């Protein structure tokens, strides 16, 4: 177990190295000059050149990479070309909204989707099952921004129950924090509810056809116990896998939701940095995302140990 953990953690090093090199090169090879963006529309070529020089963008690529990578190894992700703040500080400012939104979304999605999926499997072919499948198709089909605008119109503008936009940090109080998270989480969770519910339904349906379920029922166990203790427990591995993938996808998926609800999270930071060609910020955020992906996958693998005693590393 310890060896497995060590092996997996060590394996992240080449992954991060490759990510660092690829991202660095991609940014330099794609069109776009941060100096031109900084200078503004009315600036002249000469003024842009001054800015490029002061940002060190005229240095050879190898030198630029060496400086950035050397600093990154020491934990210094550099300074944003635009905000003149350290990338670490920018990320730290944006981490809480994204983590809060992702966690809230995934908790909501799991809390709704798993029971729905189990019920649909239990009443396979019945109205509940069909309704769930219909909802699932709708959930997959409706674009996130359309759903967001509909919810804002209904809940915020018509009913006036929740704010239209923005984010309040937990430190400002739990009330404002949760008020600003409900609609974005609801919006974002719909697609994950659809996904997790479908996988849960399929996995539990399959488990319900197994001999051990027949045996459990023959022993006279209550149906709820059969469903949860026997069918759901044995269907847990694919469900946990899809939840883990969902969590990883959420890191990228928050972008639209953060934009529509004006949440200052990592998704918006990434988009703003890409549009502005803020190289240090993009590099820092993508490195962070890579670490997050690796850790989420590791957590899924570890969860298998707990859920299925047959799995050993």
């Amino acid at each position: 177990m310890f060896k497995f953990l060590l092996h997996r953690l060590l394996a992240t090093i080449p992954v991060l190295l490759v990510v660092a090199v690829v991202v660095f090169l991609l940014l330099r090879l794609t069109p776009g000059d941060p100096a031109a963006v900084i200078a503004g529309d009315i600036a002249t070529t000469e003024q842009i050149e001054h800015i490029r020089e002061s940002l060190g963008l005229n240095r050879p690529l190898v030198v630029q990479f060496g400086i950035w990578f050397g600093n990154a190894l020491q934990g210094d992700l550099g300074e944003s070309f635009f905000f003149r703040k350290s990338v670490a500080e920018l990320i730290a400012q944006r981490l809480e909204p994204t983590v809060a939104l992702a966690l809230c979304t995934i908790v909501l999605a799991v809390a709704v989707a798993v029971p729905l999926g189990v019920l649909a499997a239990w009443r396979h072919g019945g109205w509940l099952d069909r309704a769930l499948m219909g909802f699932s198709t709708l959930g997959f089909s409706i674009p996130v921004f359309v759903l967001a605008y509909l919810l804002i119109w209904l809940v915020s503008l018509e009913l006036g129950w929740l704010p239209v936009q923005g984010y309040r940090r937990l430190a400002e109080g739990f009330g404002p924090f949760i008020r600003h998270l409900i609609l974005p989480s609801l919006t974002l969770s719909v697609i994950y509810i659809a996904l997790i519910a479908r996988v849960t339904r399929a996995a539990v349906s399959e488990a319900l056809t197994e001999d051990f379920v027949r045996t459990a029922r023959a022993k006279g166990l209550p149906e709820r116990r059969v469903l949860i203790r026997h069918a759901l427990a044995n269907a847990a591995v694919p469900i946990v896998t899809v939840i883990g993938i969902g969590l990883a996808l959420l890191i990228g998926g928050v972008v639209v939701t953060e934009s529509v609800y004006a949440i200052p999270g990592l998704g918006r930071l990434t988009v703003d940095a890409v549009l502005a060609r803020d190289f240090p910020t993009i590099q820092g955020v993508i490195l962070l995302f890579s670490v997050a992906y690796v850790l989420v996958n590791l957590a899924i693998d570890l969860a298998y140990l707990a859920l299925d005693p047959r799995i050993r590393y």
Partner: protein
Amino acid sequence: MKHWSRLAAVMLAALCAVLPMQARGEKVLRVTPHSNLTILDPGWTTAYITRNHGYMIYDTLYGMDATNQIRPQMVERHEVSKDRKTWTFTLREGLEFHDGRPVTSADVVASLTRWAKRDSMGEMLMRYTQALEAVDARTFRLKLTEPYGLVLESLGKPSSYVPFILPKRVADTPADKQIDDYTGSGPFVFSKDEWKPGERVVYRKNTRYRPRREAASGTAGGKVVKVDRVEWVIIKDPQTQANALAAGEIDVIEYPAHESYAAFKADPNIRIVEPNPLGYAAMLRFNHLQPPFDNPKVRRAAMAALNQPAFLRTQIGIPEMYRTCFSVYPCKTRYETSKGMDLIAKPDMKRAQALLKESGYDGTPIVLMQPADVAPAAKFPVVATQLLRQAGFKVDMQAMDWQTLVSRRAKKDPPARGGWNIFITFWASVDGLNPIAMNALNAGCDKAWFGWPCDAELEKLRDAFARTGDDAVRKSIAEQIQARAMEIVTHVPIGEFQIPLAARKNVTGFVTGYFLVFWNIEQA
């Protein structure tokens, strides 16, 4: 039952927790600006958002009122010698920086020196400057090598780069390095600790500020602050901006999307205000270095094909928010003239086709860059493409994001190697009030704005404009400049339009001028 009652209690507690917070006692104006504030040094970028940030925290020696007149701001009075070569300025009494230190002539000299290294008008002023020196704490002197006609216009220049006055210790920062001390003497204080990039910018009222007694107008007059705090709330999505305004979560949207105005007009709690009657001017710019637009005959043929009403109808769509303007200077301003504008004022496709045939255009495809992500300009290139094709051009319209466009337009290479032939942009009309301020009229070859027109005659005229102090002569030269600019076709004006702000009904006192300023605004 027990479970249900427990659940109800939990839900009730949650509901109590989500009730809105009590409003704080202070008056807070929440505004969604047109862009995210990223650069805080107004001498580092020409971006309008940084200029607006500058007006919050810094003050200027002179301002420009809504009638385009230069008025004293930090300056109490000035005297000009008989030979018009020595200008002596005296600062108002009691001017203080945010840290309580007095504003002195030394601060002014350092600030103007830094500004002039960046700004085209500043650079021109310094070309005629023999010395800029502090005489005493409140007096400074500008000695010129010969009379120069744009001294006050330069010092009162309202838009980027604006000659803001910084403390000497900050202004001494080299022009190629950003400042990191945001102490000013303007009507607001930048709250650095509360600045969350991409989320919120906070300014507090500067209680030390001593406004002038005159009424506020443009960037001149009394900058009386009537709120305790101004918060710039960064919301990028136009629909979310509109929703937030409707819900009262923000008080003002600086640049609403044109599609939103109909909804605003229908909302009794929202009103539309135009703080910038001059509006914005769009232009089509050629690359003078690359074929086929290195040939003035081809540029003239293209101009003859362009049609302002078609551009404006398609892009803006709301008739009361756009107008044709057949002048390189903003319409309804001092130098507006129709001289030399025949080709664009009377579009004639047959004439364009004939001119193109005469020009010897060989069918070389032209690359027209479209900023697909800039809503107020994304449709202009589509219209241009269609019109130019009708005239006989082979047009390759390439969609890209604005940042790619601004990077690419700086390249002088042929289009096949990453260069370009045409792009379209728009500026606040205030940036084109005179031929020196307007970068698009600079024909100084390598030193010119993107497109790099190169014309000694035009430069000579601009120089003559800058030298004279006689307004009638200046008006005449401005006409000649326009005629020459349109003869060589530095660019093509394609119309003017408005982007009025939207505000909650209880917000009043917007100052008419050139852009949104935050003094004088009050909340009922």
